[in-house]
């Protein structure tokens, strides 16, 4: 079970869409995709949006990858915004008590505004 990753250039920066299972086997692919974005984005990037609606499973390695992404965003002054958390993702966030740490939006449109 691999995760499918698509990267899209948007006005505010980048939109990363994840589909499938983000676990120890696949989170390195997410990390690689984010590294590519930070390289392309450089200092001009206002935000990195991550669409989590199609994520069927996420474990601690997936969360670790998102935390790293947030730390990298902070360094460059960009925002990391998570959108449309699927029920399993909401579940791990709840269990990790990390919901307040991330900026979470119900839709991509919501996450794109006010940047």
């Amino acid at each position, binding site marked *: 079970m691999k995760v499918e990753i698509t990267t899209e250039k948007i006005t505010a920066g980048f939109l990363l869409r994840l589909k499938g299972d983000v*676990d*120890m*086997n696949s989170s390195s692919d997410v990390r690689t995709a984010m590294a590519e974005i930070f390289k392309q984005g450089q200092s001009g990037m206002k935000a990195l949006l991550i669409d989590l609606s199609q994520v069927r499973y996420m474990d*601690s390695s997936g969360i670790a990858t998102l*935390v*790293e992404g947030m730390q990298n965003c902070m360094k460059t002054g960009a925002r990391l915004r998570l959108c449309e958390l699927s029920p399993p993702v909401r579940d*791990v966030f709840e269990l990790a008590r*990390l919901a307040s740490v991330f900026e979470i939006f119900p839709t991509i449109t919501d996450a794109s505004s006010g940047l």
Partner: protein
Amino acid sequence: MTDDKGQIKDVVTLIVPSHPKYLYVVRSAIYPLVIEAGFTKKDARRIVLAVDEACSNIIKYAYEGDYTRTYSLDITVETGRLAVELKDSGKKPDLSKISPRKLDEVRPGGLGTHFIAAVFDRVEYDTSRGAGTVLTLVKEKR
């Protein structure tokens, strides 16, 4: 099989290679067993997560990233109770390090053992039986 109270008590055993790609197979096999034991879907998702974290830790720490080993899971299904025994033949853990981290610190890492402790009622690492470790995880339905 039935125990002395006439209730079901079935054991399913799974032996898998230590490559992370088989974590998905473990999750796929465990989920219906948790449902069979009578847990809700939300509970089942969390139990699957915690077992997955325990398997990931075997790969990362007991086998130090060696993907060519194997480990096993004995899953005991009873009505309202699930027990999982994970056996590896790798490096024994430093038990003082496995206490789950405090969650107020935002950093990647330390979450796996937190999930395991938060989900299961009993978490017991037995390093006394020859090579490797036996981790026993038990969850009762409330």
